[in-house]
């Protein structure tokens, strides 16, 4: 999975550049998030704008990031989910667990 990493004032942005997040690439994302958390900083933003499809494995990788960030007293934020991806969060009620912003700009400004 292609993931772009950028730094913005202590915030690490991981931009997922694959339209599909499933059991084939979710372990890679989980490892990449964990690596970013271990590198420190105060906040991780996962930009989901380009993701058109997510399954339960993808949600699991994001939950792993959320829980590991809490353990390190870091903030874990999701940005820009497409409507169909957002439905998956809503079906599982995980929109109540994650901090979700409509776009990367809003996540960076907060």
């Amino acid at each position, binding site marked *: 999975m292609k993931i772009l990493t950028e730094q913005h004032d202590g915030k690490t942005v991981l931009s997922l550049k694959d339209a599909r997040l499933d059991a084939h690439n979710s372990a890679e994302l989980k490892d990449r998030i964990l690596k970013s958390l271990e590198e420190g900083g105060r906040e991780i933003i996962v930009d989901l704008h380009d993701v058109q*499809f997510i399954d*339960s*494995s993808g*949600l699991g990788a994001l939950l792993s990031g959320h829980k590991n960030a809490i353990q390190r007293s870091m903030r874990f934020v999701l940005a820009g989910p497409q409507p169909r991806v957002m439905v998956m969060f809503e079906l599982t009620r995980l929109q109540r667990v994650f901090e979700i912003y409509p776009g990367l700009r809003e996540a960076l400004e907060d």
Partner: protein
Amino acid sequence: MCDSAKTVLNLDIIVPNKTRYLRLIGAIAEEIAKELTVDNPDHDALAYHLNLVVTEAVTNAIQYACPGESNDTVRIFLSIENNDLCVRVYDYGKGFNLEALPIPDADDLSERGRGIFFIRTLMDKVEYRKTDCGNVLEMRKRLN
């Protein structure tokens, strides 16, 4: 059973039990649903849901496969008859008890256990049983 004289589509797919094939199988299921439900106002969502449930079912089949099992493939059978979609995904592992799987608690932050929940939520009828050619997860959905 899915067999019927009025079947309009039968598709039998066998792929290696590797997750790299999820994208292909999901895309096939989505395109079929788009093609056959053009009159349904929700056909885009329906196609997306079919991609999801097939992806989840094939992922399960791969994960439940027995290590060292000689049959290292997953079989997906897709049928549409009278607007009734039937998808069967066969696995050759030890199987599981569908009825015993809990509905995920909204406050449970476990990283696993939501795949069957998606399938049950998005399909009309779901069964899992043992057959002579492996275990089969059968999922049904009305398309209109």
